[in-house]
């Protein structure tokens, strides 16, 4: 199955996604791969800066209530994202937030990561996603 591998950033696991702006431009975002962020039943898959959500002309979705490092109600947006190495485009539920982890562009949460096989697929210094086999 197609596989995408990224080097760790500051010792942390990351994934990269491409966003498509309303003007037709493409922007790459590096996100912390955080399996502890949210659950399989969360109403979001990614956290990105508010301005990224607006740049992509996103449709609004139901807000969610966050606790922990983020406190309060945050609106979700439907973004179209691409992972080129996996040859995959899809719509993703994304929360718009003011602040993201230092040195990164946002967080890929458990509901996003769970759509793939994930982990140190190519050794301890990298993190990867692999498309799941169809059932």
């Amino acid at each position, binding site marked *: 199955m197609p596989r995408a591998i990224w080097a760790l950033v500051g010792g942390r696991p990351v994934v990269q996604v491409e966003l498509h702006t309303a003007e037709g431009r493409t922007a790459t975002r590096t996100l*912390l791969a*955080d399996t*502890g*962020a*949210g*659950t399989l*039943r*969360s*109403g*979001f898959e990614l*956290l990105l800066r508010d301005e990224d959500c607006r740049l992509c*002309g*996103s*449709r*609004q*979705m*139901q*807000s*969610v*209530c*966050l*606790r*922990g*490092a*983020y406190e309060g109600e945050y609106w979700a947006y*439907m973004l*179209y994202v691409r992972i080129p190495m996996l040859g995959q485009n*899809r*719509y*993703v*539920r994304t929360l718009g*937030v003011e*602040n*993201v*982890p*230092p040195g990164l562009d946002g*967080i890929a*949460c458990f509901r996003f990561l769970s759509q793939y096989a994930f982990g140190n697929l190519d050794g301890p210094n990298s993190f990867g996603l692999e498309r799941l086999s169809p059932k």
Partner: protein
Amino acid sequence: MTSPAKTIQDRNRELARQINEEALSNPSSPYAGKFVGIVRGQVAVVANDLDELGRAMDGIAVPPDETFCIEVGLDYDEPQFIWSAK
């Protein structure tokens, strides 16, 4: 003064909230487990997944800020925890 777009979005959100509450209290609701797109206060699309919903909504010639989408059947009031430092 409230802008027309905001009034539309308020209606969209209220309908989304009603649809979700109905599905949470009645699992046999026709919207339970579906992805619903709302346009100008009315249900416009009922889809089985987010990609199907996104494609259908993109085919509707309405500004995004007059639309609203919801995955029906989730408890949006339940706090979701994120611990990564920001």
